[in-house]
């Protein structure tokens, strides 16, 4: 009787999900023929266009919206991750951070981990550094980076990972430093505007001609010719966010691994 009730509940919940998507299709929210909404066109047209006041001088619209148009919001989303990790560290306590005996993995995972470790880190850094030019950015690069220490943690255990420099205190320090620097970079234009008496905004990137005449430069002229494009705050914040997310994830994985007993 209970088993049949559970089956009926399962079927009803599947029907509920299908009805939800049917509503989304009927309301033209999920549609193949309906083009972009005006808000999407506003971003797609104004972000790469240097003559628009809302430009970021970057071809990548997603990263621009994350760090320029919506930068204040993203800062607090970074803070949520930071606070979650602080909460985990506090609740875990220091007494439970002892390593249990570790199992030696076979030769195939050990060799593959050694080979893939530098490759994953190189891909992660590339994704983060080109965040203002190609799909990707600080969040994505940091998430890719966290795979490398986690593989190492699973195959070799925590003491070997700490021998490679991934110590909890250092990771926590880097994490906190990155969050502080993000807020500093976000408020530097506002501080200059306050001191010189012109209008400026929090997390402002480029100058916005009718509203605010100051801002970060989009590129610098190199002394040997040519330019280096970094799109104002976008590249700086991507690198800082990469540091924050990668160290935060690594720290969380180390703590979860240690409280769950490591490899038995």
């Amino acid at each position, binding site marked *: 009787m209970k088993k049949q009730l*559970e089956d009926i*509940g399962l079927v*009803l*919940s*599947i029907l*509920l*999900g*299908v*009805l*939800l*998507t*049917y509503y*989304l*299709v009927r309301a033209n929210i*999920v*549609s*193949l*023929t*309906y*083009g*972009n*909404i005006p808000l*999407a*066109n506003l*971003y*797609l*047209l104004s972000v*790469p*266009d240097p*003559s628009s006041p809302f430009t970021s*001088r*970057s*071809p*990548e*619209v*997603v990263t621009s*919206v*994350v760090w320029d148009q919506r930068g204040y919001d*993203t800062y607090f*989303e970074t803070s*949520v*991750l930071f606070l*979650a*990790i602080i*909460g*985990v560290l506090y*609740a875990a306590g220091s007494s439970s951070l002892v390593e249990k005996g570790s199992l030696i993995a076979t030769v195939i995972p050990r060799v593959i981990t050694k080979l893939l470790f530098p490759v994953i880190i190189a891909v992660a850094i590339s994704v983060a550094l080109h965040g203002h*030019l190609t799909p990707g950015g600080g*969040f994505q690069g940091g*998430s890719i980076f966290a795979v490398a220490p986690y593989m190492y943690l699973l195959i070799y255990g925590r003491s070997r990972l700490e021998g490679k420099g991934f110590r909890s205190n250092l990771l926590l320090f880097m994490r906190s430093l990155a969050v502080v620097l993000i807020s500093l970079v976000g408020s530097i234009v506002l501080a200059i505007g306050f001191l010189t008496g012109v209008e400026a905004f929090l997390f402002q990137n480029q100058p916005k001609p009718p509203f605010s005449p100051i801002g970060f430069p989009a*590129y610098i002229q190199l002394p040997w010719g040519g*330019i*280096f*494009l970094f799109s104002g705050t976008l590249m700086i914040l991507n690198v800082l966010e990469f540091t924050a*997310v990668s160290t935060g*994830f690594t720290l*969380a994985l180390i703590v*979860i691994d240690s*409280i*769950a007993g490591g490899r038995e």
Partner: protein
Amino acid sequence: MIETLLFYTIVITVGATAGVSLYGIVVKPHVVKKLVLLTVLSDAVNILVVLFGYYSKAVSPPVYPGGSLEGFVFPSSGELWDFSSVSVDPMPQVLIVTAIVIGLAELTFLSLITFKLGSLHKTLMFNRMEAEEE
């Protein structure tokens, strides 16, 4: 025709997955099962949100082609209109980039609480915990 069929198959599959995971979160008594189904639900919703921005003519990600660290030829207004008519909507992607990171933060915290619950009650089944209290 085949594209339409595939698109709506994906949409219905995602909806059904969301329904199943919601059912599991409510009904299954084991805490780890609830955690796994919570991540399945958030992934299903993320895919659904990405599908909001897709349409048949969209062949390009929301990145104007040709950017490099050595410079970028900023496009004119006409070129940007052409680009915006073939590019997907960037806003859903912006929303899920941060949603994934927040989801992992939440999962880390919940797994710690699960561990504490398990060491306190010696079980992770909610019905047995309730029986223990009575």
